[in-house]
């Protein structure tokens, strides 16, 4: 099979892994090519609206396992292919140099046995770093069951590592992935976490020591392939964040690629449910909520019409309204219609003066949603109501209403822009030169002796 077709097969095989983030890296370019961008960079968006940041491929889809939910399971009739190390490196380097990608996300089916697979993957990342001077982002999938030493060594070359739990309960794993007990998945996650902590400690004493998996580890849970409720999924995420310090838990709406009596007969992937879980995940990580505040045994699933924060606020109307000019940051974050950015802006603005509703609107607060929950200098907003059904109406997701021009269900982003630009040091280079009389000479810039003698004044075309 040629490289073109292989890339098609092994991208197809990798695309159900939703992680594509390139954030959290700290690598600098040391006489090679590439570096990390703290906030991560999206390079394009595929036709399903998902961000493409990394070249996400499997090394091979020739799997010995037979996990029922997985498109690559051994008993499934799909085209099989494997890359050579050189092919992966060629694709990564050439895509990177053209600015198509932030780096590589390499995963693999289990080829022969876990350690064999891990060794092949380790070889690729080692060569990218050592032979090709590549400092771009690398996200490597850890293969559960692979020799601990291999995972430890690979962690020294990559930015992020992940082991996918996929099925959110033991019961689910037992039925759908009998070869992968949850313990076998959690053990390497624990091991990676311990390594990360140890290497950070060492780094404090020896600044020159290399960091192990500096951008942390992540995992993925499939939503809708098992009968697990949102509550148990969110509790699992919470435990993973608390115990393993995971950077991200990804949720992947189960896409019915196979039919099997053990799987639910879905027609469409449960995208709204996935979206609600992501919203709740954000509430756990950035808004100070706990899983028990959002869901309970009596109420174990998210409402399709209300987002989790609005739902919480509606159940806790007795806590509101709050005064914008005096309430603390933690409570500000709990008001529907106020996000992290608005909350920070409110706190900053309060230092220099008292805010009114007009200021809030300018700051970016959505008053249609927050109007029922706040006061400004003691006054309530014009649409304010205590009536629960009126409040609810203003909170129902506009996304679900017909003819809405609002944002569509999909990816969330925390910050729309990043703030880490240096002020342009080169601005003074930007003079208005006279129209060059001979524009044919610009190419000579690249033939100049590269000893640093070239000066700006040499380029008066």
């Amino acid at each position, binding site marked *: 099979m040629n*490289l*073109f077709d292989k*890339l098609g097969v092994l*991208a197809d095989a990798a*695309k*159900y892994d939703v992680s594509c983030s390139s954030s959290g890296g700290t690598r*600098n*370019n040391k*006489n*090679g090519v590439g*570096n990390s961008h703290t906030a991560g*960079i999206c*390079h*394009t968006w*595929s*036709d*399903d*609206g*998902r961000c*493409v940041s990394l*070249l*996400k491929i499997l090394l091979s889809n020739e799997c010995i396992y037979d996990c029922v939910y997985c498109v690559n399971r051994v008993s499934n009739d799909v085209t099989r292919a494997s890359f050579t190390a050189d092919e992966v490196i060629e694709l990564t380097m050439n895509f990177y*140099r*053209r*600015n198509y990608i932030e780096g590589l996300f390499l995963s693999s089916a289990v080829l022969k046995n876990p350690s064999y697979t891990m060794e092949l993957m380790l070889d690729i990342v080692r060569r990218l770093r050592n032979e090709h001077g590549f400092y771009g982002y690398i996200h490597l999938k850890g293969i559960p069951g692979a020799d601990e030493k291999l995972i430890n060594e690979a962690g020294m070359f990559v930015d992020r590592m992940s082991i996918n739990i996929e099925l959110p309960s033991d019961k689910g794993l037992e039925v759908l992935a009998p070869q992968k007990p949850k313990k076998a998945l959690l053990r390497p996650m624990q091991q990676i976490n311990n390594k990360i902590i140890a290497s950070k400690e060492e780094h404090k004493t020896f600044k020159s020591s290399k960091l192990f998996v500096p951008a942390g580890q992540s995992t993925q849970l499939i939503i809708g392939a098992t009968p697990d409720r949102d509550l148990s999924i969110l509790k699992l995420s919470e435990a993973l964040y608390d115990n393993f310090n995971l950077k991200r838990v990804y949720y992947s*709406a189960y896409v019915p690629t196979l039919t099997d009596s053990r799987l639910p007969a879905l027609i469409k*992937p449960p995208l709204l449910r996935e979206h609600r879980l992501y919203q709740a995940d954000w509430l756990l990580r950035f808004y100070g909520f706990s899983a028990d505040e959002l869901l309970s045994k009596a109420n174990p699933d998210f409402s399709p019409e209300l987002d989790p924060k609005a739902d919480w606020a509606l159940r806790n109307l007795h806590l509101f309204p709050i005064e914008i000019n005096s309430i603390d940051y933690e409570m500000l974050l709990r008001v529907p219609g106020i996000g992290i950015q608005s909350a920070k*802006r409110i706190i*900053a*603005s309060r*230092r220099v003066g008292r*805010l009114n509703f*007009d200021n*809030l609107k*300018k*700051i970016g607060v959505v008053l249609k949603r927050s109007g029922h929950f706040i006061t400004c200098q003691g006054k309530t907003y014009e649409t304010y109501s205590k009536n629960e059904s009126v409040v609810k109406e203003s909170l129902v997701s506009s996304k679900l209403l017909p003819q809405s021009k609002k*944002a*569509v269900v*999909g*990816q969330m982003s925390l910050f729309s*822009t990043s703030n880490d630009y240096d*002020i*342009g040091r*080169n*601005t003074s*280079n*930007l*003079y*208005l*030169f006279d129209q*060059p009389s001979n*524009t044919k000479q*610009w190419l000579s*810039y*690249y033939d*100049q002796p590269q*000893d*640093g003698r*070239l000066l700006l004044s040499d*380029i008066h075309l």
Partner: protein
Amino acid sequence: MGGCCSVIYIYDGTWDGFLTAVHHYYYDRQSVTNIESALSYRPNLIDDYKNIIVDTSRAKSVEKAILDKISFDSLDNIMRCFFSETEGREMWIIRYIKIGFKIGSKIDCMLGDPAVLDVLQPARKVKFECHRMLGLLRFELLESNIYYAKIQPDHNIITFISSHFKERFADQNWVIHDTKRSLAALYNTKRMLISYMNLTNIPNLHADELKFQSLWKNYFKHIAIKSRFNPKLQKQFLPKRYWKHLTEKT
């Protein structure tokens, strides 16, 4: 035209030119009704206008005054607002500076104030487009081993984004060419130059270029999940005006 009291300043369209105009604004003791770029100004017979000659030392002193009397953040926002090329930005910046000189770095907290937002909002748009362009810019390898990227951003962002590419692609020859403004950043693995220039006679594509373009297009096609197709969401992140320079969208 005999206007004794008010005048319009015309500067050359550059940052230093604008700062020089700001300096004049403070020291000429003249009533100034507007500051406009020579690139967009159409003179008429009614207004009096004065040509501002770029003076880097005056420009630097204004930059320093903003840094000392207001803040680093304010200078950053003013600069981004300037490069947004939004019509009317010059007088917004003047108004911002006036407030800033009075109250200092407190101005960075006045996030609900209309006069401050006149500068902040264009600045945020520039910041947003800068970040977006770090991802959307596409290089093509040319015969002479130069990576060439054509861009047509909404705002004049080439100065803000070039340093990122200089660091990342330190071992490559590259050109970023803003064809909308005839601006280019050239980098030859040692030095970077940003200047207004018309680049003609651009070399042909390298023999391998089309191979990697088609591999990338193939990857892009395969990475989408068919049962999740969502062109509306895609367009929300990736507005159509950027498509013509995207390898995977052409």
